[in-house]
Structures are given as structure tokens and as C-alpha cells.
């Protein structure tokens, strides 16, 4: 048995990825659940509008360290409050006047709940109104995000497995010597996964709408563009993973490493507002973060393009960058390498 235990430890030590996962996963999970994955709202960006902005504020004054005033506009109206919440600039907007109304963004469920809790102690004549998701339904905010998760799963895992199999079985070389242009091989390889991804996008959206009564208030075009952009990111990740993996097992391991942080940190489950800045910057590097913003905006807030320009722009850049890098790396498998191609394996 001693020989067996020794062998197993030696092998484990060599498997850098597994060791990395053994160390990294507890640390990531601890960090995420300890700091980021909190449903407690620490700061709620709040806007104060209307003629009485200067006077005491019934809501904000109760917990000044939670309600952080980010916007003050004495000329602001209820419409402005709606727009501020829709564009994600504030989660709560207090419109002073008679009566004073507190508007709450219902897509930020936890912030909204905590605001509603305070509402009980508000003086008479202050009204609270929840916008976009008045029932504070969890399904309403989860389903748009889950679409992204499914696209990531299909696009990244299935694509990387499909491409890495060609390499593992040596058929990639066969493709390279056939009279096919590298472009044809790459597009032909990816197109089926793209179609499956599109099908999944439609399927989960329709099921989500029917089964959970999730409202769809925005533009179908914006939904489609967001979905396709994100699909390109997911497929690109899949191809990239396959170009650095030797086996399907390695590909799955890498795909999981790409997916787990996106699930936890994209705002799909835990709100971004409850994450400390030290963790939140990671969220801003993840494509799913922008996809979740776009989909919630389109589904629940009927957001116009102008209010989602930044997430669209960033997602487009990410899609172009990831997909281009993936195609270039894939091409190296198919086209003869130049004289400086020292990276190639020395033929045994």
C-alpha cells in the first residue's frame, strides 16, 4: 500500500492543473462567498430629485452610510427617476414633493427589499413604488442571466470538446492536407455549434417566458444582437481552450475554470453592488457581466440602446478579440508554419 500512496502523491503533485484547482478553488470560493457573494447591501446608489432636495430626506437620513447619494437634481421629475433607474445610474430615486415618492429598481432585488424594509418606518405621505419588477420575482432576474450561462456552457464546453477531439485523434492533420482553405475548416467546424447556440438561445428564452412568466418588454433586435455577440465570445473561448488542451479532460477542466468565476461574479446571482471594489473589478473583466446587464435591461426595463451602449460596446470588443485570437490559434494547426515557427514540436 505504501508504494501505491507514494505513487498517487507523486502523480498528484505533477498534475499542475489539478493542484491549482485544489488550491485555487477553495480560495476563490472563500473569497467570493466571504466578500462578494453577499446579499447584504452595503451601499445603495441613490438619487434625490424634486424641489425639496435640500431639506431632510426621510429615507436617506435613516441610514446615511447605506444610501449613498449619487445624483441630486432639484428640477428632476418622476420621469427622470425612471430613466435613472433604467440606465442603472441609481437603484433608488427619491422624488420629493407632494407626495414624496421613493422609486426602487426591482431588478436589484436585495437593494429593493432593504429599501422596502425601511419604508415601514417612513412618515405618512411617503409612497414607495417598485419599478420593472414590482413583485420582486427572482425568476424575472435569473432567467435573463441564465440564458448567458447556457450559451457559455454550450458554446465553451461543447465547442472545445469538438475541436480538441480532432487533435487528440489526429484527424486535424488530415484536414490540414485536404484541399480545404483554413477559413473553410474553421468556419465549417464552428458553424454547427453556432447554430446549436442560436437554437438554445431561442429555446431557453421561450421556455423562460412561458414557464416563469418572465416579461419581455424591450426590443427583439437588441436581444438578438446581445445574444449573438455573447455567443461569439462563448465559441471563441471554446476554440481557444481547445488550442491549449491536449485531451478532452483538460478542455473540460479549463472550461470549468472559465465558467465558474463568470457564474459567481457576473452579477447573475450575487448583485454587483454588494461586492467590494477589490472583487468587483474582476466582474468588469467578465463578458457575462455585460450580457446580464443587457438582458435584464432588455427583458425587464425596456431599455433603449442608448442606455446600454457601454455594455454593448464592451461585449463587441470582447467578442472580436476572443474570436479573432481563437481563429488565429486554430489556423496555426492548419496552415504550414513559416521559417520562424520554432514553437512547433520537434518531430520525434
Amino acid at each position, binding site marked *: 500500500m505504501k508504494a501505491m500512496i507514494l505513487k498517487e502523491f507523486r502523480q498528484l503533485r505533477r498534475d499542475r492543473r489539478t493542484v491549482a484547482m485544489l488550491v485555487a478553488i477553495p480560495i476563490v470560493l472563500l473569497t467570493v462567498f466571504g466578500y462578494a457573494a453577499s446579499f447584504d447591501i452595503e451601499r445603495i446608489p441613490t438619487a434625490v430629485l424634486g424641489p425639496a432636495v435640500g431639506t431632510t430626506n426621510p429615507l436617506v437620513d435613516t441610514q446615511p452610510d447605506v444610501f449613498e447619494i449619487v445624483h441630486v437634481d432639484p428640477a428632476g421629475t418622476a420621469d427622470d427617476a425612471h430613466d435613472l433607474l433604467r440606465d442603472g445610474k441609481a437603484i433608488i430615486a427619491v422624488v420629493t414633493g407632494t407626495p414624496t415618492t421613493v422609486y426602487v429598481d426591482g431588478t436589484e432585488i436585495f437593494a429593493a427589499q432593504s429599501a422596502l424594509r425601511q419604508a415601514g418606518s417612513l412618515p405618512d405621505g411617503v409612497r414607495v413604488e417598485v419599478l420593472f419588477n414590482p413583485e420582486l420575482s427572482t425568476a424575472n432576474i435569473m432567467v435573463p442571466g441564465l440564458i448567458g450561462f447556457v450559451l457559455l456552457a454550450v458554446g465553451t464546453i461543447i465547442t472545445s470538446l469538438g475541436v480538441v477531439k480532432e487533435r487528440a*485523434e*489526429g*484527424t486535424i*492533420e*488530415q484536414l*490540414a*492536407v*485536404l*484541399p*480545404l*482553405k483554413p477559413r473553410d475548416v474553421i468556419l465549417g467546424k464552428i458553424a454547427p455549434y453556432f447554430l446549436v447556440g442560436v437554437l438554445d438561445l431561442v429555446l431557453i428564452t421561450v421556455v423562460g417566458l412561458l414557464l416563469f412568466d418572465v416579461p419581455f418588454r424591450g426590443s427583439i433586435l437588441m436581444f438578438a444582437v446581445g445574444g449573438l455577440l455573447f455567443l461569439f465570445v462563448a465559441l471563441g473561448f471554446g476554440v481557444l481552450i481547445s488550442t491549449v488542451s491536449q485531451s478532452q479532460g483538460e478542455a473540460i477542466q479549463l472550461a470549468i475554470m472559465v465558467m465558474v468565476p463568470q457564474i459567481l461574479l457576473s452579477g447573475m446571482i450575487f448583485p454587483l453592488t454588494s461586492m467590494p471594489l477589490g472583487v468587483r473589478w474582476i466582474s468588469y473583466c467578465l463578458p457575462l457581466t455585460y450580457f446580464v446587464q443587457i438582458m435584464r435591461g432588455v427583458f425587464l426595463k425596456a431599455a433603449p440602446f442608448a442606455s446600454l451602449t457601454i455594455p454593448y460596446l464592451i461585449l463587441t470588443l470582447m467578442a472580436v478579440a476572443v474570436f479573432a485570437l481563437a481563429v488565429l490559434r486554430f489556423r496555426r494547426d492548419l496552415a*504550414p*508554419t*513559416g*521559417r520562424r*515557427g*520554432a514553437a*512547433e514540436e*520537434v*518531430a*520525434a
Partner: protein
Amino acid sequence: MTVVETRAVTRRFGSFTAVDAVDLEVGPGEVVGVLGANGAGKTTLMRMILGLLRPTSGSVTLFGEPPGRATRLRIGYVPQSLGLWRDLTAAENMEFSAGVFGVPPTDTPAGAGGRLVGNLSLGVQRRVAFAAALQHRPDLLILDEPTSGVAPLSRARLWEEIRAQAERGVAVLVTTHYMDEARQADRLILMARGTVVGRGSERDIVGSLEAVVVTTDRWEAAFGVIEDAGLAATLAGRALRVPGATTGEVGAALRAAGVDAEVTTGHATLEEAMVVAATS
């Protein structure tokens, strides 16, 4: 016209020279075998001929032009790994490669059609790979150990087909390190350390190389004595062979150990010549 022609083709990887100034010609209707141990440069040479790798210097021409998409249309290639998709049926594989070349698919070898390639025996898989590579009537066949691991009768049938292609005027380039396959070629090229160290028939390549043959009842003892003398002995039934050695040194070692043995010489085999070329 020569089908394959390499002129002083060289390929370096960093400071390592995998193929060093190799000249090779294959004409129509000719079966040429490239032999060599691991690291001899066979694979790199073939990858340059297939257009998967660019030479560092020298030239490769196929049908008079450098390897490219146009030349690929005229090549049929069967890698050692066969290049079939195991999760497609044999017929689907045939259809795919026919589609790539824009020709109608030919008949799938008997008994293979509707079954997944991964479920076929190796012999049948090889027939399918070969049939798939012939569909577009290539003018050049490049085969990497085309019949390794196959039972003798299946191997004989495959070589009958390969030879039939050659008789139609197809140029055939085969890499192998099995003697049974090497004997099917019209001409052999033996590579070692990136260069060509022998050309011609089996007899040309073996040349004057001899192996010492030791016949004795005490062959177990003889084996130990020869190995202890730093020579490489192999069993041959109940005799021993020591390629690349002299009767003098073998005889002396045996006498010193008091082992009675008949020590003669015979022609080295092609395989022994390959080992001697690779290790000397």
C-alpha cells in the same frame, strides 16, 4: 516528369537540424519506401512534402510546383492514425472526403458501410482509409506505415491495391520501419539523423554489412557473454545474431568465457542495417 522532387531540403528547429539536405525523387508508377528509426527525420520530411511544414532551405516540388492547395487536389494521404473520424460511419467518412475533393463518393469497402469507424476492426479501418484516399484518383499516394498491425492476408490485399495504383501510373511514397512493408517498394531510402545514409534495393542498403551468427547449445551463457562484452545480441530461435560486430571479437569473448560455439557470419537484415545506421 517527376512527381515528388526534393532538392537539398533542410529543416531546422532552433539549433536542431531534423532534415539535412535530402534529395528525393519519386516518379509516376514508382513505389518508394522511406526507412529510418525515430529521429531519423522521416516525419519532418513527409510533413514538408505534404506542405504542412516549410523547409528552412532547399526546395520541395510536387508535379513541378511547390506544395499548395493545387497540389493537394492530386494527393491521396493515409496517415498512420488513418485520419478517419471514428464517430462517423465508414460511408459518411467516404462522403466527406469525396465532398472535399468535389467528386462523387465511390463504394465503401464491403462490410463497413453503415458502421461507425470506431467499431470496425483495424484491418477494415485501413481499407476504408485507403478507399477514401483513392476517391479523387490522386496522382500521388503518401502512406505512413500503411499495413502495420494488420493480419498477413489483409496486408497482402492492401499491397495488391497499392501496387495496382502504381501500375496505373500513380507515384507512391511509403514510410515504414517494418521490413515486410519495405520489401514491397521498388526503391528504398534509408535515413539516419536527418540525412540519407542508403539508397536503392534492400541489397544495396544492407551492402557489405554482416551479422555475426553464434550457434551453440549454451546460448543462454553465450548471450550473457556477448552482452557483457558491450555488443548487442538478439535471439534468432536458438541462435544469436550480433549485427555490426566481427567474428574475431565475438569469438574471443566466447573463448575467454569458455563457451563453445560455432561463430559464422551472414548478411545483415534490413532491420539490422537500420539499427546499425541509427546507432553508429
